[in-house]
């Protein structure tokens, strides 16, 4: 497998949303729906409340979840049931506290505003399906994933595959189809990053980061940053091996923020093959 392809398989899920505005623009373009959609409710008396919730959602949530909850960097919320929030109480809990280990932050909102957002998010489940229909065939996509795409070289699915790139076992729950398509075509468009508001305790780095380094004895190495502290850095190389260095052992250390070692699939796959692969990835959920 050529190095370029191996690198191509890294970071299927990515983007540099350099501003939330940019992410909003992407989401709006992807969904091709009105910027301010009509509110759908079974109870017309709640309309004002939902309108307040919609405004809060636009300001606080839409940059990741799309203006209409159609999903983007964050998962689609306009669906009949949410995998992590099966009821109103669990939704409140997630909005209030965020989700540890993900890019979902805790909301800096008052309780009543959190309730308004939660009610609005619940109302999204009543929407007609907002995002564009997925044109591809998931069964064919699975074949492309396994063979022509070679995705398993770097990505894990339910315990099978490589671990150089992110685990994709539930990527269908975490990313919208349009986002996945963009990630295949332009892998560096959004490298996953965290909104974690407090870097509280000793932890793994928040951002996926590709690192190139040169040791004092002239070795050139590259890999994904696994951890880094004030005096040392640990990287995972493409072959899966972990290398650890004290920074005093390094002559050069380059951090490629916002870049992915995975090149574009825009030409490596035909359009219909991309559709199939997106359909397959969108079908991936932990419940499988």
């Amino acid at each position: 497998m050529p190095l370029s392809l191996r690198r191509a398989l890294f970071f299927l899920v990515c983007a540099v949303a350099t501003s939330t505005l940019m992410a909003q623009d992407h989401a709006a373009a992807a969904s091709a729906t009105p910027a301010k959609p009509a509110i759908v409710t079974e109870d017309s008396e709640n309309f004002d409340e939902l309108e307040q919730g919609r405004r809060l959602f636009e300001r606080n949530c839409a940059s990741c979840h799309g203006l209409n909850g159609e999903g983007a960097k964050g998962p689609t919320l306009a669906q009949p049931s949410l995998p992590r929030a099966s009821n109103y109480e669990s939704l409140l809990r997630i909005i209030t506290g965020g989700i540890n280990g993900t890019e979902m932050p805790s909301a800096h909102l008052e309780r009543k505003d959190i309730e308004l957002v939660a009610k609005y998010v619940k109302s999204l489940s009543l929407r007609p399906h907002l995002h564009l229909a997925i044109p591809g065939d998931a069964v064919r996509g699975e074949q492309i994933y396994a063979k022509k795409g070679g995705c398993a070289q770097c990505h894990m699915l339910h315990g099978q595959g490589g671990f150089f790139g992110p685990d994709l076992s539930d990527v269908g729950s975490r990313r919208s189809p349009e986002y996945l398509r963009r990630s295949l075509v332009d892998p560096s468009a959004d490298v996953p990053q965290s909104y974690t508001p407090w870097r509280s305790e000793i932890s793994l780095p928040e951002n996926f980061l590709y690192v190139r380094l040169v040791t004092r004895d002239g070795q050139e190495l590259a890999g994904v940053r696994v951890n880094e502290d004030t005096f040392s850095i640990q990287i995972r190389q493409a072959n899966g091996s972990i290398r650890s260095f004290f920074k005093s052992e390094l002559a050069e250390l380059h951090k490629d923020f916002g870049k992915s070692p995975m090149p574009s699939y825009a030409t490596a796959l035909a359009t219909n093959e991309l559709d199939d692969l997106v359909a397959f990835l969108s079908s991936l959920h932990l419940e499988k």
Partner: protein
Amino acid sequence: MKILRLLSLAALIAMPATAQVNVPFERICASSKEPGNWLTHHGDYAGHRYSALDQITPTNIASLKTAWIYQSREAGKWEVTPLVVDGVMYLTERPNAITALDCKTGRPLWNYTRPMADAVGCCGPVNRGLAILGDALYMNTFDCHLVCIDANTGKERWDTVVADYRPGYSMTGAPLAVKDKILVGISGGEFGIRGFLDAYDAKTGAHAWRFWTVPAKGEPGNETWGAGNAWTNGATATWATGTYDPALNLVYWGTGNPGPDYNGDTRPGDNLYSCCVVALDPDSGKLRWHFQYTPHDVHDWDSCEIPLLIDANIDGQPRKLLAQANRNAFFYVLDRASGEFITGKAFAKQTWASGLDAKGRPILISGKEPTANGVLVYPGLEGSANWPAPAYSPRTGLFYVQTQDDYSQVYYKHKSDYNPGNNYEGGGARNVLGEEPYGAVKAIEATTGTVKWEFKEQSSSNAGVLATASGLIFSGTHDGYFYALNAATGEPLWRFQTGGTIHGAPVTFLVDGKQYFAIAAGAGLFAFAL
């Protein structure tokens, strides 16, 4: 025979008296004469965290190794600075406990634990330490009691309520013992409390005075809160321990953010005495002067950072100075007798002020107030410096402080209604995607604010700093290293990976004439010696 019996009785009475803990006010004032002990939260009244001990040097520090480790029963952020008195270390542990340790072995001698009510706070039930006066220890509890403990036995002598915790008051800082009084500050700046600094009689616990940091209607300064009742929830907490100048008989204490934190619409004006240093008479609690670093703050830039008292020459003249590295990214030098602004300079990247005017007031850059949709400002809400205690070395003339740089956040505001016991912040701040702000110990020339060197850390640290006469600087990292630097150059000389985030501050002391260092990291209290 009777005389003999009387003599032996006298000996018996005399013997324990000499062995008993005894740290009178005069001994604290002269703490620099006994560097083998650590008698106040900041090591001395001036806040220097500087030790004259010089057994460990840049030359022999490579041999410094762990002597013992004490494990706390409570996990979580451990922000303590221990006290050390004559071979015994006194620690606070989360949430409301004191433990006395044998400094030689790390073995506990006694423990005092006070049950805690279900109090709330912005940042967890932390406790930063104790005050000692005479033979008693004083601790603030998270649920707003001040307790007096017999330092010999750990038995409680008195327990007084400082505030009702239910509306959002809490206490996290170490008390300050001055003369016959115990001064205590409160937390709760995110809950719409009305801030104050209190003093209590050390013997009895009787309330001595209160300085409200938000003046009431009719009092000078209340007009800086607008015509309404915003002042009643004006926050302005006093949660980090101040300093004291015995010669001027003035206590210096930093004050916190006004409330609500990010939305200043209901509190037009400068909002005195928020984001200030106040100079108070410790006998009466009367305000002598104040200096406001950030008038009408809307970025949660508390000014609780430690005000260090430094004697140095300015323009060839000896001056009594007060220096502070503020959360708002500026380093300030004041005359501590008068409060006069002498100089100030940014020590980290900031985008909210074009500079300071002749009186030290920031010259604002427009458009940096939080909005509904968010505004990007350097520094973020945690500030360029924060509560972790800095150090000052009279040998180098440098002020050493943990900082955060290349650090911005998007600030936004919304309308907030005050509900007792609930957050009252009026907005918030979010990290900027893709940014990796860095932490650094910066060495700042104390009289000019010029940064002489910085030692970069992977991320910002809440560890305090310690300076020694032998030319060493000790601090810790968020990622668990306790380390030493060359005080003149910032060159790293020694490190130890503790395995836990360091939120505590290092101290140094003598055991049987041998120099030790100690620091809390994770749930461990680590002691080091040659």
